[in-house]
């Protein structure tokens, strides 16, 4: 099976991720630690893996702007998905990761709209 070299999000989810990041990061003129897109992308994927989700294919064409080698430098996400046996035979693992990210980012965005923050309780409570 051929794994894509780049993955990303649909244009809509990519815009949502930008909004989220801007919301969570220090405001203009303020100092402090800044989140990058990868941080939220990986978190969305990890949550999907943990839940064993089977997200549908992306509604729109992916805006594949992240290099897989950069996003998953050590192949940890790949290994986690592979070992968890979440991918049906023949499906590229990074495509599945992309679906998880798309779904996760959309959920983050909706929750942030409703409550003003990420669903931390839901994410971190066992």
């Amino acid at each position, binding site marked *: 099976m051929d794994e894509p070299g780049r993955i990303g999000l649909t244009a809509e989810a990519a815009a949502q991720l930008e909004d989220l990041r801007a919301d969570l990061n220090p405001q203009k003129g303020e100092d402090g*630690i800044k989140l990058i897109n990868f*941080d939220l992308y990986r978190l969305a*994927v*990890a949550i999907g*893996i943990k839940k064993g989700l089977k997200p549908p294919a992306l509604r729109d064409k992916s805006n594949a702007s992240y290099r897989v080698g950069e996003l998953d430098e050590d*192949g940890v996400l*790949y290994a986690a998905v*592979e070992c968890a046996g979440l991918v049906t035979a023949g499906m590229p693992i990074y495509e599945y990761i992309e679906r998880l990210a798309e779904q996760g980012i959309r959920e983050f965005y909706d929750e942030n709209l409703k409550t003003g923050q990420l669903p931390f309780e839901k*994410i971190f409570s066992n």
Partner: protein
Amino acid sequence: MKLQEITINNFMPYKGEQKVSFPQHETQNVMLLFGDNMRGKTSFLNAIRWGFYGNAVGRHLRKISRASLVNMDAAAMGDWSMSISLKFSDSNKSYELRRQITKKAHVSSPRNDSDFEEKIGLRVNGVVVPGDVIVNEINQVLPEEISRFFLFDGELLQEYENLLIEGDEQGEKIKEHIEQVLGVPALINGRNELASLLKEARTLQAKDAKNNNELSSYAERQRQLSIQFDSFEKDLKEQKFQRDENQVQIDIIDDELKNTEAVQKKKIQLEGLKGNVEVIERNLVNLADQKRELLKTAWKDVLNTSIAPILSNLQSERDNLKKAVNNAAVLNNKIKDLTEMLDDPTCVTCHQNIPENEIEPLKEKYEILKAQAELSAVNMDDYTGITEKIDKLSRIRSAEEGRRILQTLTKESKEQVELIKVETKLEELNDEIKEYDTDHIMRQREKRDRLTGLKSRVVHAIESIKLKIEKNESEQDQISTLISKNKGAQGQQSSIRVNLYQELEQVFSQGIVQLRDSLRETVQQHASNAFAELTTEKTYSGLEINHNYGLSIIDHENRVLKERSAGAEQIVALSLIDGLNRTARKSGPIVMDTPLGRLDPKHRSNVLGYLPKMADQVILLVHEGEIDPKKDLNNFAERIGARYQIERISATESRIERVSDHG
């Protein structure tokens, strides 16, 4: 002195003309004026004060402007005139004093005192007193400086506590007033007059001595000392002026600040809260930073729990593969040995051929081992693949980011709740002080601090100059004595005068000390007698006076009582007032506003029983919380000469009504 009648016209809440007659009876000498708060008790006290001295004071002794003295309703109707007439008697003379202010014709809406014209008239025994001597005449009867001892606000009795504090400014002022009441300044003025005469005499003596060869060096020294003395006096005068100027400015600021004490406190609280807001906001920024830092690796924490069983499975799988590899190696060794044996069936020990019947089972064993070896064969790629996966998954390590993020959220919520509380309080405080220029108030506080520092330096300089003057005077005395003893100067008029004035000055100086001692003793005695009647603690042995006229309570073992309650302070202050009235060169009626505010019922009863004895006339301005007309009056009903009530007409108008004896 006895007050007979006051006629108030348009003064503060008293619109139109209102007359009050004071009791003249020897024993029924108490007048009660009842009035609720805000109705005009203090205004009545001020009406008397203004009538006598043209001066009315508000809380904290602030002077009230003329425009504020005119009744608001009358002023609104265009009537800007106000007057007070007082009838009183003293030393068998009857006095009629009338003071009036009217808006100047060209002023439409008066604001400043200068927008009014003041007229004052006095008749003594019906004879008009010329305008330029009226003030002097009033001061002969009741000097303004001593008015604090007969016209006073009971709430301010606590200021007499300052007499106990060494070097206290207010205490110094009160002491000065006390000495005026007691007549000490007469002797002080006498001594100062003599000091001035002595100075002149010394100058003449030095002039005479200059012509004498033996004494010319003394004369020259005396001349220099005299020049130095003048310079010191000049410096002293300047420094005192500077000190008084500073004090005036400090007093003005104090008056202003006293009115804004609550605002100042709120402003300080506000600044503190602003500091709190900054701390909370900083905490929130730090927490947000911590949260973001944790979020960067939180994905590993999320994966960690779901990956753990997979990792464990992979590790067991790898262990099994390892075992299989080892097993295959053992089998292969065995197969190798058997192959060698079957290829050359000779015994390795005896070198004889192995019989055919023994070879057959070996062949069977060989076949079995071959089959087992085939089954145990391990694909090394699988092993490597599993190892790679284990390596990767082992990198998913949790630093408990999730738990720590949730803790951060809890802290954030607490900080946010605190922030809301503080901001609400800030808003309230801002609302409360928005009408005040708090920056100005704070600047005034700083200015006061600077002035106090400056004053302290000036006071130090004054002390230093006084010491120099003392030394100079002593040297001048010494030289004068040396000149006087010289044969050539003996019998000279200038030397005789110097000796005479020197001796007289000493007599006056000692006289002042003796007079003060004697007056203090008398005040202490009278105050102690009053205190014995006023206090409810009968074991106290009396009061002890200090050189400032401050009084301390002495207990049954002759120890000074260190702490005393607000009620006790009031009792001691009343005792001092009584002691001063009985020792003073002048005495008059006592007009007291809210005298019983801080007293418990027993002390109140004692005070009510004692007040009628404190003066020939006692006028009490009280509210019904202080004296209950139904209960308290029975204690001294026989001493009440007149009862009045301030009736509310409107928020800006009150009327004084006489209450019938049975009312």
